[in-house]
């Protein structure tokens, strides 16, 4: 659905201004979602709410992907993140019964919070200063295959994955093996069968995504 939305937007070449405006609109909506979601994650006290706000951010990011002709990734973003990761988060929250408010006031180390805020700000300012805000890119374009041009996005990603990125792609299998073994190992404790299933679910889902 999202991909079709994007193709509609791109197809409208006759009215460039409209396309321009719509691109901006998508960007702004996405940005708003991203920032709202992120703010929600770091500010809301109930972990369940945090997880839901994370979904908002993830959708926002997916929107920005579409805006930049990364259709396939947008789809994967929704499926993997919203579909699997966040669900798993919610599951664990419920499983552990930690869906209560966090006592934010209690702080073992006084300087942690102000310093943390300061550091976040400093890092951000430094990154922006390094990029001089709008001078980000150098480099030789299109070393692994052009993004524009004929063919659709999925095809191009697929080509790149099965040629230049073959080895890393295959090696992601190792990650999935580890994930499976890890859940088995960590849930071996007596009376912890539920955890086992949770791990297996995600492992399966992520393998679907990559294969």
């Amino acid at each position, binding site marked *: 659905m999202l991909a079709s939305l994007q193709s509609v937007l791109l197809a409208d070449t006759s009215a460039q201004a409209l396309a321009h405006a719509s691109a901006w609109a998508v960007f702004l909506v996405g940005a708003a979602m991203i920032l709202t979601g992120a703010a929600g994650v770091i500010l809301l006290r109930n972990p369940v709410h945090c997880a839901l706000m994370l979904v908002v951010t993830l959708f926002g990011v997916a929107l920005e992907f579409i805006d930049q002709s990364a259709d396939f990734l947008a789809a994967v973003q929704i499926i993997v993140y919203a579909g699997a990761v966040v669900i798993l*988060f919610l599951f664990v929250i419920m499983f552990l019964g930690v869906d209560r408010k966090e006592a934010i006031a209690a702080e073992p180390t006084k300087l942690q*919070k102000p310093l943390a805020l300061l550091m976040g700000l400093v890092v951000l300012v430094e990154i922006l200063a390094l990029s001089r805000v709008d001078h980000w890119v150098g480099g030789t374009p299109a070393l692994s295959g052009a993004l524009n041009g004929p063919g659709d996005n999925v095809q191009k990603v697929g080509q790149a994955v099965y040629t230049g990125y073959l080895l890393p792609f295959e090696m992601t299998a190792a990650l999935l093996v580890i994930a499976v073994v890890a859940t088995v190992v960590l849930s071996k404790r007596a009376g912890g069968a539920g955890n086992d299933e949770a791990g297996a679910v995600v492992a399966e889902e992520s393998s679907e995504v990559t294969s």
Partner: protein
Amino acid sequence: MSVPSAWYLVLAAILFGMGATGLLVRRNVLVMFMCIELMLNAVNLTFVTFARLLNDIGGQVDVLFVLVVAAAEVVVGLAIIVALFRRRAAATADDIHILKG
């Protein structure tokens, strides 16, 4: 043609900063973990934007790998958290500090 890339990149940088800050200020392990996801998403956004700027599919493929890694990390991370907090009521990172000094 459309929105200048710098906007996306600054957006991503802000998201990264927010994620990092969130990790440092929150005490709930699960929320800290979500903040890491925020940071990873910021990186993904950066990759995609650079891919567009450079007209290079490589950036998008990189995002694919980040997604896989993130998924595997989530599985393992949550498994560790569950294993550790199963018997505890409150799951804050600060409750865990036997090892120090």
